[in-house]
């Protein structure tokens, strides 16, 4: 009998395994120990907001999830697949993890439409017509259908970030990572971006959101994780962590930002 090869590199979507599961994750930059044994998970369909002071390692944790940073030790499982395993098809896994950066990182030399179709064609091997259709659908979703032919420099920060979200969505990801998506925006532009994210959450998207928007965390988050000094200090329902924090460091942090 021919054994059926188990394609270890293809994540399986099942309720039994969390979308993201991080165990005993440590990360050092040189002698600077940034993550000191993080245990963390995000279930399918869950919206987890990560909060904490600047420099506490939130971005590093997020970037370890799709291995933009190489973990020093510990495991990172995405849909049951160990992404630190050298046998894993990292590019394949990454197409299932949408990522949105603080600085948008749109490709400035490409039109908005090309920004959205490039990776669909190169990484997902979609035909151009299909890629364009998917791109236009996602542009419409973030309210920027008429900007398809514009270049990033012609858009406001808020529009650029919504294009970046549409770009990530065009890969049909199973989950989305957000790293302070509104921190680089003028205050009056924050609302549009948060609205798009809220809509995603309502549709059941799995989301890990590093944010300083406590209103968003309270309203949209299923769980809030407070990090400080490279460890998870406290986590739970938003109303508990934000409304009735138990840890002194959480209290101190919230007293400064609320």
């Amino acid at each position, binding site marked *: 009998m021919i054994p059926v090869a188990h394609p270890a590199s293809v994540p399986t979507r099942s309720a039994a395994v969390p979308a993201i599961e991080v165990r005993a994750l440590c990360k050092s930059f040189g002698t600077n120990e940034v993550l000191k044994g993080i245990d963390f998970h995000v279930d399918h369909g869950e919206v987890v907001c990560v909060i904490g002071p600047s420099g506490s390692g939130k971005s590093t944790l997020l970037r370890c999830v799709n291995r*933009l940073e190489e973990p020093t030790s510990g495991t990172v499982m995405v849909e049951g697949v160990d992404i630190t395993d050298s046998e894993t098809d990292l*590019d394949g896994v990454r197409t299932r993890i949408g990522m949105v950066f603080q600085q948008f*990182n749109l490709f400035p030399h490409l039109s908005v439409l090309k920004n959205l179709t490039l990776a669909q064609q190169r990484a997902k091997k979609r035909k151009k017509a299909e890629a364009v259709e998917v791109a236009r659908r996602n542009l419409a979703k973030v309210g920027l259908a008429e900007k398809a032919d514009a270049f990033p420099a012609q858009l406001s920060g808020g529009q650029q970030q919504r294009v970046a979200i549409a770009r990530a969505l065009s890969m049909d990801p199973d989950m989305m990572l957000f790293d302070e998506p509104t921190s680089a925006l003028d205050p009056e532009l924050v609302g549009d971006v948060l609205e798009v994210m809220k809509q995603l959450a309502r549709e059941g998207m799995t989301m890990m959101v590093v944010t300083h928007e406590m209103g968003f965390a309270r309203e949209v988050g299923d769980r809030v994780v407070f990090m400080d000094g490279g460890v998870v200090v406290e986590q739970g329902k938003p109303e508990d962590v934000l409304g009735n924090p138990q840890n002194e460091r959480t209290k101190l942090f919230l007293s400064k930002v609320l």
Partner: protein
Amino acid sequence: MKRSTRRRLTQGVLYAVFAAAVAFVLLSADWATIRAYFFNLDVAVGVFPEIVTIAAKNTVIYTAIAFVGGLLLGLLLALMKLSPVLPYRWFATAWIELFRGLPALLVIFGFAYAIPIAFQWRAPGGNAGAGLIALIIVSSAYIAETIRAGIEAVPKGQVEAARSLGMNGPWTMVTVTLPQAFRIITPPLTNELVILIKDTSLLFIAGMAIGDRELTTFSRDALTSTANATPLVVAALLYLIITLPLTQLVAKLERHNKRGR
């Protein structure tokens, strides 16, 4: 004395010195000889049309070949220099340092004479071909450093965005990094091109067949056969006709880039 008066006085003196120097040169020059040996119309007419149809044409062709060749080889070397594979980095570094450190004239001479003798090897295209290979190699060393700097000037977030979308390293390089890098380095690359136009004049050392001569070789031969310097002046004017638009372009691109930031 008031400061403004003093400044005007200083400027007046500077102008006077300049005018005196110009007058001295104009008066002391032997205009008849200069006209006869540098601006001789009969000699000038005599070098046409070959100085354009052969010499200037060859200069442009050699420049194009050396630039395209140097660009391709330079791109390869830049990628090797940025490669995680250590021997590639060593090789690229050695190549770049070697050919930036040697006089181009010596390299051309080596390829035209030393290598054929040592290895019993003839370059395609004879001595002109050998000289061109040398020019490609020399320009690749400079262009490689320019391209490497351009690649490193592309913000890190660009590569991260592309990789996070699942694009592999080579596709990211081709579709995201290189297009932006080349936009950044267009002014210095155009500069390399202008330098290369002038460096084709060094090919004379290779000793070229009649039909292969470029502007400098051609006008040097004409200088000898006519015992008159006018061919050099014609060649100089033709060089300027080729290079001036390009140097203007560089200046324009640099202004444009500055405004873009």
